[in-house]
């Protein structure tokens, strides 16, 4: 069993590098490593992999300055958000403006149909009178007075 622990296998060397071997196995392994170029190369590879992982790990750590900047940005955006009243005002203002546009679009149609003469009152002491309404919108209203001898169709 002890022998197996001190064999220069990839697994044993990996455990050695990770500090997982007991003291006796570690000492035996350390005595063998100098005589094995393969073992040395393997250990070197472990070292380089570890240092690379360390660099990556450091770069991924959230440093305090970045965290603070992010929180500052969040706080600033929260401060910039319009208040509830302002948002409601904008909403109703937009709605009112849209209503005005709709009314303006439909109103000219209404006006076209209302483009006619309105006679509020008429008082005639000639012999008689009649009102000739136009048959079409392009026609004209005629108030016809019967002044004794004049006639209309």
């Amino acid at each position: 069993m002890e022998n197996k622990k001190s064999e220069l296998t990839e697994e044993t060397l990996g455990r050695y590098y990770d500090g997982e071997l007991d003291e006796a196995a570690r000492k035996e392994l350390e005595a063998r490593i100098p005589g094995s170029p393969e073992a040395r190369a393997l250990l070197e590879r472990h070292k380089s992999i570890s240092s690379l992982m360390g660099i990556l790990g450091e770069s991924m750590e959230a440093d305090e300055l970045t965290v603070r900047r992010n929180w500052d940005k969040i706080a600033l955006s929260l401060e910039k958000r319009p208040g509830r009243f302002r948002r409601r005002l904008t909403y109703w203002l937009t709605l009112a403006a849209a209503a005005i546009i709709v009314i303006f679009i439909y109103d000219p149609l209404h006006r076209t149909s209302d483009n006619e003469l309105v006679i509020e009152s008429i008082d005639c002491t000639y012999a008689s009178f009649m009102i000739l309404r136009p048959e079409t919108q392009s026609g004209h209203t005629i108030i016809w007075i019967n002044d004794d001898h004049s006639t209309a169709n």
Partner: protein
Amino acid sequence: MNDKKFFPWRSISLIIVSVALTLLFLSPAAGQNESSNEQCEITLREIVADNSGGEIDPALKDITKDLKKLAYSSYRLEQTSRLTMRKGEKKIQELLGKNRLELTNDGLEEGKVRLKVKLSPDSGKEKSLETTMRVPDGYTFIIAGPAYGGGVLFLAFTTKF
């Protein structure tokens, strides 16, 4: 990313409000406020109708269709007058055949001018026509019938305000 965050609600609101304000500014109601004196111009055409010929004066082109429905074959434009009146103002006009016209501008209402029209013979007070009407801008109405010569007098009123 959250798309909702980037939807330009504020820009859309701004565009809608701008369009509405522009429409309000350009609307006829705004125009009426500008002409707060409620001035109205009446173009009065005095036309003589009889059966002496078969012609309708080319100057009456806009009302020819209406005139053709009546019992006269000839229509001749005799006089044209322009009467400008402010709100509440009254104008008196002597017409052909010793007729008399009184026109009063009662101001604008619902996009129309309220006009009081009184037509009567200059001498006689026994007969008259009095009417109050609301007339749209650019509209032409006709009052016809007083005897004149062998025919009758037609009065064509066209509003502008």
